[in-house]
């Protein structure tokens, strides 16, 4: 019990340290990137010299609005995140479920050559259209925005799952099982999928991050008020407090998701 708690405390500490490091790196990136101190208001010809000096002085003190307030959106960061987090979680959650469901199903069915052909072409087609274009096409056809994320994720998951399963089916013990008359479902569930489990679980963790990456252009283009759109606005406005906060959140979420994937991975014995 004591060891377990110590291990948990170490994990939490490592997560926190990584997140803080990510925040610091982001802050350094924002402060040193071109345009960090520029402001569109400087181009307003109505402003006199005193107002322009005041705007420049604001940017010298980049925390003039307070660390917990977004200077570009002029609102508390906690309010922004609280309002947008459920929207993005819903979009990503549905996207991941749909993408994994479709990818697994089609990967399994790709044992049949015809299905393999159709699935391969579908995968190539969705892989070759930018998420921005998919979003606009879906929207213009009256489809729900939630369809876009599965379309973006599906080919990336499908290709890996299909390759892993194909390789697994060539392993000696599975060939033996087939020769002994084990059913297709049995081979899949008791032999093939467990062999692929470690990589599939890692992919699952990574796909959650990919889903958020896909959410950024989708939310921005379709004006879905989620965290992806917020991240986009923060990056283009060089909004340091908001970017650092988002980086902290994403770093913590990434590590938690990946740690969960590692924890669920079956043990492979002692370390080399």
């Amino acid at each position, binding site marked *: 019990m004591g060891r377990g708690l110590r291990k948990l405390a170490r994990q939490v500490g490592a997560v926190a340290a990584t997140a803080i490091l990510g925040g610091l790196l982001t802050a350094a990136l924002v402060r040193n990137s071109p345009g960090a101190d520029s402001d569109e208001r400087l181009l307003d010809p109505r402003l006199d010299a005193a107002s322009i000096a005041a705007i420049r002085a604001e940017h010298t003190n980049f925390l003039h609005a307070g660390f917990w307030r977004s200077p570009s959106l002029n609102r508390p960061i906690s309010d922004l995140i609280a309002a947008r987090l459920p929207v993005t979680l819903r979009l990503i959650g549905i996207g991941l479920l749909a993408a994994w469901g479709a990818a697994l199903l089609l990967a399994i069915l790709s044992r049949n050559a015809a299905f*393999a052909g159709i699935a391969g072409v579908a995968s190539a087609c969705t892989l070759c259209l930018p998420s921005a274009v998919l979003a606009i096409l879906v929207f213009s056809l009256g489809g729900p925005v939630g369809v876009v994320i599965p379309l973006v994720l599906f080919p990336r998951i499908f290709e890996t799952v299909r*390759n892993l399963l194909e390789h697994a089916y060539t392993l000696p013990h599975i060939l033996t099982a087939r020769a002994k008359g084990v059913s297709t479902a049995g081979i899949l569930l008791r032999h093939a999928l467990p062999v692929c489990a*470690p990589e599939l679980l*890692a992919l699952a*963790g990574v796909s959650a991050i990919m889903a958020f990456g896909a959410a950024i252009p989708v939310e921005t283009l379709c004006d879905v008020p989620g965290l992806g759109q917020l991240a986009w606005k923060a990056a*283009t406005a060089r909004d340091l407090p908001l970017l650092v906060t988002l980086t902290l959140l994403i770093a913590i979420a990434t590590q938690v998701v990946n740690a969960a994937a590692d924890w669920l991975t079956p043990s*492979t014995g002692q370390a080399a």
Partner: protein
Amino acid sequence: MSLRARIAAVVLGLILMASLCADWIPGMSYAQQHRDATSAAPSLRYPLGTDDLGRDRLARLLSATRISLLLAAAAAVGALVLASVAGGVAGYCGGWLDRCIVRAIDLMLSIPWLLLLLAVRALLPLNASPVASLVLTYALLAALGWASPARVVRAGVRNFRNSEFVLQARAEGCTETRVLLRHVLPNLKPTLLAQFWTSVPVFILSEANLGFLGLSAGEPFPTWGSLLRELQSPLLLRPEAFAPAAAIAITLLCFKMVTPWGGSQV
């Protein structure tokens, strides 16, 4: 080589030849604006029509194929090499090295990459050649794009590190480096190939997304990504505007059919 693979090889050859020879075909220029023939429909003169500045779409597509294909493939290879090294070392060695590399991967996945791309783009000299700008963009995408595949590679390596063939190799006196490079990583071919085949279009699409922001190579230089911007306005869409997307899909499918390492059936 199967019939399908041969057909794919021929198609691929034709695409590559056409893209390499595009600059020498008389009357075909990716930059020339024919202002009296803007947004023209496909015809004998312009097989894929013209864009809204009167530029030959086919000429632009062929020029874009050359550069985007080369750079995207190179970036994918680069990212995969980095991913293999990082994921391989982390998964094989375990312990504190694994933990450090995993944290580095998670950190890479958390940093707002868009800001980095904007910053690097903005730092480029304004007179930098479009090719230099594009090479730098893809290099950056490769440097940022290794983290996701590294995670998958790591999981695969962990799976194999105590396998029987690995134990046998060690028993026969192979060094750990040799075991990793000659025995473990080759068994990850399916994973690595899948990552490669998805990385190439992902990098092209990342460049396209930058193009939507207006941050692709400077005018008039075409890339697959910048050509895909035409798809952004569905009300003004013409079927020929899908040509770049079709080109990417066909090229990738052909590559997959042709490669001897099989990737998978298509």
